[in-house]
């Protein structure tokens, strides 16, 4: 009865594996192949150039700057976003005053806040970036107008025009647009933590902070960890690219202060017509992303708690 099993499994796995190979593995292989060529992207004739692109990449200041910014985003963004989201979710679900019949409850109006937090998630990142571009406008934007209104007229930063501020302006926008998603995700996670735990903690006289660190966070750890990887990949990839491309000077500026790896790949391929070199940088990005995921999974490993 057993000897047909493997043929059966192979039969069913063949199609998904083939799809995976064609649409995932094969493009990766192709990219790696093109990273050894001088392909322009504008015509289909090209030659093998060996490791030229790689040695060029290692000497390329802009590559290192982009890498630095991408790594900074991958470290800071998840930290701030998930930190804020955990705080908000905790307040919405367990942080409220004790009311009748309920040992734990969120702050007043938490249902409304949940929707308000989630709202940016339904807007495309391009729209968000465009909206914030107006807010950051140094002459007529909302931010400088507000500063003026509260009497800080001398303090009128150029925001996106200032190399020291630009990258942080982009980060703020990315945080604003993603934090709501994690609030909802963590709220769902917290809702599944049994209420008895909180009741027991309250009876023992635990403070909110203790409750958070001893009960909520450990029981939510798996969710936080996946969120961390997800957020890091957003920061290394598409979201950071879009925000930088739409919002910043240049784009990628001023003076290369906001350029990130995916943007540099895009510019090299589609502006400088050096698709071969662009795939080389793409391979660099692939390595960074995989290292990031590996490190997070490694550091985050801990004993699973059952409840």
């Amino acid at each position, binding site marked *: 009865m057993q000897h047909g099993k493997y043929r059966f499994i192979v039969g069913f796995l063949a199609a998904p594996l083939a799809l995976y190979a064609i649409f995932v593995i094969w493009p990766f292989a192709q990219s790696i192949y093109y990273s050894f060529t001088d392909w322009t992207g504008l015509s289909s004739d090209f030659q093998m150039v060996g490791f030229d692109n790689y040695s060029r990449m290692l000497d390329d200041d802009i590559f290192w700057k982009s890498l630095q910014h991408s790594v900074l985003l991958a470290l800071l963004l998840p930290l701030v976003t998930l930190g804020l989201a955990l705080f908000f979710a905790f307040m919405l679900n367990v942080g409220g005053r004790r009311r009748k019949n309920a040992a734990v409850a969120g702050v007043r109006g938490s249902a409304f806040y949940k929707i308000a937090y989630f709202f940016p998630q339904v807007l495309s990142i391009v729209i968000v970036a465009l909206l914030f571009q107006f807010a950051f406008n140094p002459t007529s934007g909302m931010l400088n107008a507000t500063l003026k209104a509260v009497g800080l007229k001398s303090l009128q930063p150029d925001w996106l025009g200032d190399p020291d501020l630009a990258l942080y302006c982009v980060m703020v926008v990315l945080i604003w647009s993603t934090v709501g998603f994690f609030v909802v995700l963590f709220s769902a996670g917290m809702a599944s933590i049994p209420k008895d735990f909180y009741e027991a903690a309250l009876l023992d006289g635990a403070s909110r902070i203790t409750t958070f660190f001893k009960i909520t966070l450990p029981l939510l750890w798996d969710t936080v960890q996946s969120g961390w990887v997800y957020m890091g990949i957003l920061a290394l990839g598409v979201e950071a690219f879009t925000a930088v491309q739409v919002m910043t000077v240049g784009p990628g500026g001023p003076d290369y202060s906001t350029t990130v790896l995916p943007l540099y790949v895009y510019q090299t391929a589609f502006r400088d*017509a050096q698709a071969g070199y662009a795939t080389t940088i793409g391979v660099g990005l692939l390595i960074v992303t995989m290292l990031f995921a590996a490190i997070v999974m490694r550091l985050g490993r801990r004993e699973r708690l059952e409840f």
Partner: protein
Amino acid sequence: MGFTSGRTNEGLGRRDVIKRSAALGLIAVPTMSFLSACASSDGGSDEKVEKGTKSAKNPLGVNETAALEVVIFNGGFGEQYAIDAEKKYNEAFPKAPKVKHSATEKIQSILQPRFNGGTPPDLIDNSGAEQMDMGVLVGKKQLADLTPLMDAPSYDDPAKKVRDTLRPGVLEMGQFDGDPVWVMYYAYTVYGVWYSQTNLEKLDAAYPETWDEMLALCEKAKKKGIAGWTYPGKYPYYLPFSLYPFIAKIGGREVLDKIDNLEPNAWKDPAVKAAFEAYYELFQKGYILKGTPGLTHIQSQTEWTKGKALFIPNGSWVENEAAPTTPGDFKMMVGAPSSLDASDKLPFGTVWASGGEPFIVPANSKNPEGGMEQLRIMLSEESSKNFTQKVKSLTALNGGTDGLTLSTALQSGVDVLAKAGENVVNPRLQDWYAKLQKEQIGIAGIGEMMAGRATPAETIKKIQGFADAAAKDQSIKHYKHQ
């Protein structure tokens, strides 16, 4: 326990195998064609339409029944002028299907894959922020030589060749090395210092012909709370529009030629330093509109049309682009860069003017003759006038403004050209080395200087470094002034 329902010992029936392989086939076939459309596909379409017969009405030998596809950059000039000219094409070739027209801001994203796959459209306005690198296109033999068009009789006068109807310098701009003409620049752009006559009059001033007058006027404006200058701080590569001719005026046009040729120490010329220091002074004395480094081109133009700044470096498309925010009594004008001092090599009036809106006919297009014929139609007096009226810009066709009532901006452009005479300069960095010009010199160099974050000396050193690196870089094609 077995997984195979216990029906047979074989596991899979013959029928299942057939069904499954058929399903795989269904997936595999489109996938293969998808992959073959990727990079390694064999470029070049073999499906060129047959040539038609040449005649007096059809000097290029266009196939009268073939389809024509045109892609227009939808920027400051919009697309209506092209649609109008395409109607003329259909009138000339009534048997051909209606010209397939599309307009986009994303020229490269849309067209690069089509070039790569060997199926580009027949005529492209390769313009805007996503302009495809013309040097690479030429180097990779992706463009059709437009010499047949240049040698064809002009649309209005069969005794004249198209090449003889063009403004000076336009044809040369379309050449790279040697005779072939790869690019036809359709618009003719006057670059310079743009201002409002009305706003100057309010300050009791005329356009400053010397730098001292410029500084004095800026000081006067400052006292009234008006800034002297603004510029698109997010795209500071607009600054060269008035800065480069200023450099040529101070040190002669050889300085710009050396810069274009990427010669060693070209940027260390004293004329460059003098010009940079003069512009830097505008920042130091607070004559630049506050917040300018964070503005886009549209935002800075709006501040300018609102009268918050007097001058803006720009090209003649600004009239059309800023039209929505321009007050009726604005009296928009363009001026040549002011003289620095009496020792300037070239007289006041030296200005940067050159072709804009580069049109290309891809070598692999199906109907290249049709693409060239469409250009010939666009270079007729009627289409040219239509363009000038619709978008307030000159075309490559010499003249063609007779009998038109021109706006103040357009008229001032014509006047500036007349005054400049021989002294029209045409720096080529922006079409030869797009990355060097825009990102390195523009944003990282001049942009940082004008925001006050680098001194002229530091900026020159930085830019010279970029230029040297570009000269050494074997992955880009290098050009020289002939």
